[in-house]
């Protein structure tokens, strides 16, 4: 028998998709030009909250090259409304028209559209649209929005709260009574802009056979097909969604936006392709934002550092309307994970979803889990600080133990951590970081007025939302499965059709590694197709760190079915019993005999010529699988950061960053490290640099372009040591856990702890992100002035 091919899974296989991107041949939506294509541009509200009194479209209609100009009332009843896809039971859902009809609720909301022959002509005409507004008082902050006298956004949303969600486990009140102390903190999770380097863009093109093709950078092509079909009123099978190369998604490209509905509608009305392209500044006010929470936390503790209970109150600012998953983020995705990696038996959390006059907030890398980890980690760090216990010791003391898995935090029914070894992660991280030496160095330098700090953060979460029937219980209008098809051609080469959707993840490489190991054929003989609903059978797409755990598993199972069928065919060809046939290294053999083995290619050919198939075996070698996982995987990790803070300028210099992550079985360590690097830097960005700000009175977006919104550059971030610990997940056949969101979950608390540790000599125990130089400098000044009084 042939030895199996060396496994591809686990190897740092170089990316098979790189060549096109490196040579400028990547094809993004904005690169597509169709004959006769017209351009749409949008007139957006300059006010945060206003009544639309009158819209004068006349001058715009007369502008050169203009084909069509429409306002909200022209579309009323024709398309829309936009409805969320995840509605936590009991939520009040405000009406959201595709284009505002009589009232605008955030700066950037669509009020009218122009279609013209060139983009420049469309922009020129937008400038001529004259809207008369009656300005109303606005509210942008979640804490202000729930006050009794706050401006009200929607008639059916009393007090601006759409959803109240509660989690209870054990008895917090009793824990608080029995505690030696109860400590309190209030933390803010700053609003962010996901900032994919490719902005959104849509082209809708009518095809001669009465179908419509929509090109868009979608993380979820099949879900977009359904949503667009339902909202515009197109039979779903007549709609083809094509997602070509995508320049980053990070959650922002999985929602349903007005422009994605307008282009299909207009293309059908006008009978020609219609394109919309989002400028960067437009993106800041039209593509969903992330985070935007305020949390109040109580921790009931014993003086030895034991945590008896925790109470959390979350206010999740979701902007003016409920975007796709808005009710799920600050609720299920956040507070369910509020106890982090720690054994905290008594837990009580309440989350309120608050509407404000701001851009809608939805998923951004981690969605809720970064906020949840920030709650848990800031809380345990506060306990350590308060009791003067070492930050590593406090974690060791309270960690869920390796033998406790599967673990249900606070006795939860739905939240289950499948596996983990947090002490193992911590030890590995401490060793790589040289923790003891750094502690000594920090102390020594402090005596010389040099302020260095060490940050520690642990995280765990659940990803790959499934199974489908569980999603129904939490209010989703979708499932949690993924589909894969493997089509073998008559030469034995494979084409994989996957419902997952790469946005830079390298799926052509990672998915073909999974298929190659099962099919026992070289990776070069496998192609991967994604992102075209006319080619790919079905799918949910890529988000929630689900592609390898769910999409990869479906492909694994599908590839196994191919081998099983090929074995049947081979048995017929070799005239032996199927169970005597072994398959390895691309050869079907009968061990213990001198029967000449058959190659995979020969069997594939037989499958298609069909001349000699066993009874009951249909021709072809082409399988499709819909795989619904039994549960969700729970990645975990421990990250450490070393920083120096200059108290005279407030500038933070990051000296080192070590990430140790347990993402189960690694498919491709090179790609996995890439995910950690990118995620950690987005997390560092949240901690130190990025924040969306609104003028609290006018509701104007102050960070309206990349000039004012501080996305980090190479100079602002450190090298990252990324190491792994592999504890396979029992929830899927390949043992993988999600990875994409790990970095952006762990890095914010890790960085904040490091800076607070550096500032400890000043008595500073809390600062809200982002830890910008002015914020740090002011805190140091306050501390010094306080000390002098």
């Amino acid at each position, binding site marked *: 028998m042939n030895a199996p091919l060396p496994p591809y899974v686990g190897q740092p296989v*170089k990316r098979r998709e790189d060549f096109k991107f490196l040579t400028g*041949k990547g094809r*993004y939506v904005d690169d597509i*030009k169709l004959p006769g294509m017209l351009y749409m541009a949008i007139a957006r509200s300059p006010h945060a909250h206003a009544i639309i009194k009158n819209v004068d479209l006349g001058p715009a209609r007369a502008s050169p090259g203009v084909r069509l100009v429409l306002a909200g009332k022209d579309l009323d009843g024709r398309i829309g409304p936009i409805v969320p896809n995840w509605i936590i039971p009991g939520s009040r859902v405000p009406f959201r028209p595709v284009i505002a009809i009589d009232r605008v609720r955030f700066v950037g909301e669509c009020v009218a559209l122009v279609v013209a022959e060139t983009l420049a002509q469309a922009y020129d005409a937008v400038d001529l649209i004259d809207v008369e507004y009656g300005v109303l008082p606005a509210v942008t902050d979640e804490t202000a929005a729930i006050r009794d006298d706050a401006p009200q956004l929607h008639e059916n949303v009393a007090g601006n709260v759409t959803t109240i969600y509660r989690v209870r486990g054990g008895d917090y009140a009793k824990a608080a009574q029995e505690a030696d102390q109860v400590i309190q903190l209030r933390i803010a999770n700053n609003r962010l802009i996901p900032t994919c*380097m490719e902005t959104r863009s849509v082209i809708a093109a009518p095809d001669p056979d009465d179908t419509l093709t929509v090109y868009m950078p979608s993380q979820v092509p099949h879900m977009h097909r359904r949503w667009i079909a339902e909202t515009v009123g197109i039979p779903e099978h007549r709609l083809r969604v094509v997602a070509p190369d995508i320049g980053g998604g990070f959650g922002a490209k999985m929602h349903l936006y007005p422009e994605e509905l307008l282009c299909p509608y207009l293309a059908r009305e006008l009978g020609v392709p219609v394109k919309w392209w989002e400028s960067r*500044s437009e993106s800041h006010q039209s593509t969903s934002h992330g985070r935007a929470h305020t949390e109040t936390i109580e921790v009931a503790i014993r003086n030895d550092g034991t945590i008896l209970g925790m109470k959390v109150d979350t206010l999740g600012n979701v902007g003016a309307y409920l975007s796709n998953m808005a009710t799920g983020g600050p609720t299920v995705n956040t507070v369910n994970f509020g106890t982090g990696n720690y054994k905290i038996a008594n837990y009580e959390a309440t989350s309120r979803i608050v509407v404000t006059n701001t851009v809608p907030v939805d998923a951004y890398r981690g969605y809720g889990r970064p906020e949840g980890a920030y709650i848990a980690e800031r809380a345990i760090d506060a306990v350590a600080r308060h009791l003067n216990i070492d930050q590593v010791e406090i974690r060791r003391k309270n960690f869920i133990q390796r033998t406790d898995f599967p673990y249900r935090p606070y006795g939860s029914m739905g939240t289950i951590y499948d596996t983990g070894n947090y002490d193992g992660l911590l030890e590995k991280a401490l060793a790589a970081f040289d923790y003891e030496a750094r502690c000594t160095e920090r102390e020594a330098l402090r005596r010389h007025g040099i302020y260095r700090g060490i940050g520690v953060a642990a995280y765990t979460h659940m990803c790959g939302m499934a199974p489908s029937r569980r999603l129904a219980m939490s209010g989703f209008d979708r499932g949690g499965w993924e589909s894969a098809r493997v089509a073998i051609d008559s030469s034995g080469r494979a084409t994989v059709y996957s419902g997952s959707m790469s946005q830079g993840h390298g799926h052509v490489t990672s998915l073909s590694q999974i298929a190659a190991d099962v099919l026992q054929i070289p990776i070069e003989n496998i192609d991967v197709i994604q992102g075209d609903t006319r080619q790919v059978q079905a799918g949910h797409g890529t988000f929630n760190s689900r592609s390898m755990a769910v999409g990869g598993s479906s492909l694994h199972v599908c590839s196994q079915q191919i081998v099983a069928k090929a074995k049947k065919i081979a048995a017929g060809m070799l005239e032996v019993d199927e169970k005597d046939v072994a398959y390895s290294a691309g050869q079907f053999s009968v061990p213990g005999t001198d029967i000449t083995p058959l190659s995979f290619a020969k069997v594939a050919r037989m499958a298609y010529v069909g001349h000699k198939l066993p009874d009951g075996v249909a021709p072809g070698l082409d399988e499709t699988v819909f795989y619904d996982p039994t549960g969700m995987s729970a990645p975990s990790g421990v990250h450490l950061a070393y920083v120096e803070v200059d108290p005279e300028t407030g500038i933070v210099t990051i000296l080192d960053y070590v990430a140790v992550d347990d993402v189960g079985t690694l498919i491709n360590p*090179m790609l996995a490290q890439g995910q950690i690097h990118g995620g950690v830097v987005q997390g560092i960005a949240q901690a130190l640099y990025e924040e969306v700000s609104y003028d609290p009175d006018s509701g104007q977006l102050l960070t309206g372009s990349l000039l004012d919104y501080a996305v980090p*550059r190479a*100079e602002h971030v450190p090298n990252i040591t990324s190491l792994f610990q592999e504890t396979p997940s029992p929830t899927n056949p390949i043992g993988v856990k999600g990875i994409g969101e790990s970095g952006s979950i762990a890095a914010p608390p890790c960085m904040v702890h490091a800076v607070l540790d550096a500032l400890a000599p000043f008595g500073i125990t809390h600062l809200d992100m982002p830890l910008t130089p002015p914020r740090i400098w002011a805190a140091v000044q306050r501390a010094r002035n306080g000390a002098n009084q």
Partner: protein
Amino acid sequence: MSEVEKRHVVTLEINGVRRNAEVEPRKLLVHLIREDFGLTGTHVGCDTSQCGACTVELDGQAIKSCTVLAVMADGASITTIEGVSPVASRLDAVQTAFHEHHALQCGFCTPGMVMSVRQLLRDHPDANEDDIRHGIAGNICRCTGYHNIVRAVESLVAKD
């Protein structure tokens, strides 16, 4: 015809080929490259000259092509990502280093990043890590966290 609509003829050499186009005075070089010449490897990532996705070489110098009007490039020689490798079917040294070190994910920043790295290596053939991080500071990458881009460039420096 208004001044805005008046057309100007621009003649330039792009990736070694002489081309001309009739453009509005307000047209940006990046749009000339993408729309008129169909070279879509040069990207537009912002509208305030922050991101570097549009970086090309103009007369041998890396520039952000969204900061130059097409008419200003009249008579110039331009190299875009499509013209970087002398053999179209192969990668040049910088492109190869990016592939070897997994210095790209979504690939949207990559063409601009490659153009900036070429400039960096011309200016600082023995660049250290600080020089590298500073040298690519005009280009935003949201995916890689820059770590592997820095490794790729270091490998090119070490080779010399």
